[in-house]
């Protein structure tokens, strides 16, 4: 009798699984949206996914990844695309578009700004590309644990590289991107000359030489959630990080961290649709919905990344949980935006193979 019951249950659940599988494959009542996880994905779920589901009834599956085009390339080449919408870094969005891994986006689907300005003028420069539309601006900064430095506090990028004045381990992302820029800024190169110099062999040598000075004290991280954890664990005294993650640790988790904005490397994240996505039309709809003035401003209530639309900026208010005014914590706030390097995606798309190789060789030495 008992056996019979178990069997029935098994059959029922199998049937349910089949039914569910069929329904999910048949149409646009479900959307798979892929992003970077942690506080960042949470901000998107709160500001985009929930309102979208409420309005249109479409269920949204949120998946995490750690950047790069590998999964998209694998899915597109195998002609089995499981992701509908992906949050990409600028250089990957450009490269993915070039290589035909992404659908092109017709910008006429983007709604006008709340103030009536057409989308192409409302988005900040570079935010609209052939295959991807930016939703946020973010930056790589460095942050330190206030409790670790009783006297003088680090203030400039040069301080990050000065282990004599500010002893302790450093956390850095395991990639040449942003680190080479930091190294040159710390070495006294003005922001506007950084990429000009990096395009030359001497410039790259100079950057690696600067990195050499702290190499033995660096702990390398790969996922965006790691640096706040490293700081909290006391494994490092300062670390480079994405500004939103550190803000989240300060505002929500009440950690004694402080962001240093000097020399920040400024970048954008974009929504893109993998070529051949199953729910392409629905993904386009979601893309247009999530990048309207209100939603972009809404996301800024959850994480300190700046909206990609100018019309959203006046709408930025307080943090949804901590009640902190968000404006001053944005990378673009006047006080923070003084010595800034804007990530040159063309440079990185061109030189990343060579520089990655050199970086890996340098690491292994």
């Amino acid at each position, binding site marked *: 009798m008992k056996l019979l019951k178990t069997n029935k249950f098994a059959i029922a659940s199998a049937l349910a699984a089949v039914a569910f599988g069929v329904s999910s494959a048949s149409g646009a009542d479900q959307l798979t949206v892929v992003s970077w996880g942690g506080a960042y994905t949470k901000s998107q779920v709160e500001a985009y996914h929930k309102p979208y589901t409420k309005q249109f009834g479409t269920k949204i599956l949120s998946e995490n990844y750690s950047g790069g085009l590998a999964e998209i390339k694998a899915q597109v080449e195998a002609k089995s695309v499981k992701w509908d919408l992906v949050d990409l870094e600028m250089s990957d969005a450009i490269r993915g578009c070039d290589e*035909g891994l992404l659908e092109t986006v017709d910008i006429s689907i983007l709604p006008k700004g709340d103030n009536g300005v057409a989308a192409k003028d409302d988005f900040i420069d570079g935010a609209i590309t052939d295959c991807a539309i930016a939703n946020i601006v973010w930056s790589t900064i460095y942050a330190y644990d206030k409790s670790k430095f009783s006297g003088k506090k680090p203030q400039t990028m040069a301080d990050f590289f000065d282990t004599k004045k500010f002893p302790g381990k450093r956390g850095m992302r395991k990639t040449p991107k942003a680190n080479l820029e930091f190294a040159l800024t710390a070495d006294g190169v003005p922001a506007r000359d950084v990429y000009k110099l990096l395009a030359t062999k001497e410039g790259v040598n100079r950057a690696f030489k600067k990195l050499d000075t702290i190499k033995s004290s660096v702990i390398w991280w790969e996922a965006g959630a790691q640096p706040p954890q490293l700081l909290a664990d006391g*494994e490092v005294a300062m670390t480079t990080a994405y500004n939103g993650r550190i803000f989240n640790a300060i505002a929500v988790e009440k950690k004694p961290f402080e962001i240093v904005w000097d020399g920040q490397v400024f970048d954008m994240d974009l929504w893109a649709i993998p070529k051949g996505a199953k729910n392409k039309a629905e993904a386009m709809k979601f893309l247009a919905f999530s990048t309207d003035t209100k939603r972009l401003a809404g996301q800024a209530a959850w994480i300190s990344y700046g909206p990609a639309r100018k019309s959203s900026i006046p709408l930025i208010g307080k943090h949804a949980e901590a009640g902190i005014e968000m404006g001053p914590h944005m990378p673009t706030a006047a006080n923070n935006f003084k010595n800034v390097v804007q990530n040159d995606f063309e440079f990185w798309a*061109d030189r990343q*193979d060579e520089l990655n190789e050199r970086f890996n*060789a340098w690491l292994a030495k």
Partner: protein
Amino acid sequence: MDMAPKTLETSRSEILSTVDGQPLKKALARTERTKRFKAILLVAPLLTFITVTFLYPICLMLFRSVENPLVAENMPQTLEVLQKWDGKSLPSELAFAAAAKDLAAARKSKMIGRLATRLNFETSGLRSVITGTARKVKKMEAPFKEAMIQARSQWGDVATWSTIKRLGPTIIDVNYLAAVDRGYNVKGEIELRDEDRRIYVSLFGRTLLMSLIVTVASLFLGFPIAYLLASLPLKYSNLLMILVLLPFWTSLLVRTTSWIVLLQTQGVLNDVMVWLGLFEDEQRVQLIFNAQGTVIAMTQILLPFMVLPLYSVMKTIHPSYMRAAESLGAHRYTAYWRIYVPNTLPGIGAGSLLVFILAIGYYITPALVGGQDGQMISNLIAFHMQKSLNWGLAAALGGILLGGVVILYWLYNSLVGVERLKLG
């Protein structure tokens, strides 16, 4: 002369037959055949499974390491013109015109990005040269030489053209050359890369060295454990066996992260040392996120693969061998070294080979605890699969690793003999 028919007759009369009159030999052959057929039928699912999920992907990977269709397919006219090019000075206007046509076509067929990426793997910076020129090529007019050099100055470099020519063939060796830190120069000679870009050879070396250390360490740790297990009475040894198997059944990730918790500078081990006063709070030692952390974690994770074959071989060594040696006058230790240890050699061989081969392809543990100097070759293969998307190079690195394992196996076979390998 009349001997022959006679022999034939006797042999014919001696043919054995079954009850129903069939020759026994034939009947036997038939049953054997059916048996063999049934055996094949039984093995067939496994065989197809292995072919589909193992052999086929490996062949595909090896093929990917040499195939190179992109340039040949998208720059056919340029390559044709370049065939007669001497490779020393800039090619003629013909080549520029052909390239302009090819780029325009590639832009139209949307292959331009892939073509640019492929060329960029070989010569850094070519990506934007290709895509940038392709964007402007529609408006270009003859002479194309001036127009293209004006669009991007790199078209005036011989190196750009020699890269295109070199990547022309559909089957190429550049991935394997890159995998051993070599490449072609402008003259078409193979040479070592710049010193600051050499990485793979030393990384292969480090992978071998670390795997060797892990193998030796697990042999030294595993041998006494296996001996204890084999010589204790069953009720104790079973209990101990569970202690060996329990970590074996635990997830690899859990075990690796446990090592992080134990060994990190703010971790358990360092805390205990500081608490005991062995050193000051500022002098905490870096035990993980480096090579030694990788070796420690990998040794613990791979230890069961050493203990189990050793144990099963030791179980089969009869105690009477030792007793016989001692009764013939050997000292206990002599008997142990000259009789017992040589008998465990098949187990040592099996365990070491197993641990070593698993170790050189290890990925997750070095990725998590390797830091900067504990990375192995598999981590760079993963890097090229996931980040740089240079699958050709990843396949070439994988191919070399596979070749290395095959050579090791062959060496082992010719030195020790695979038939002496004993897993139990």
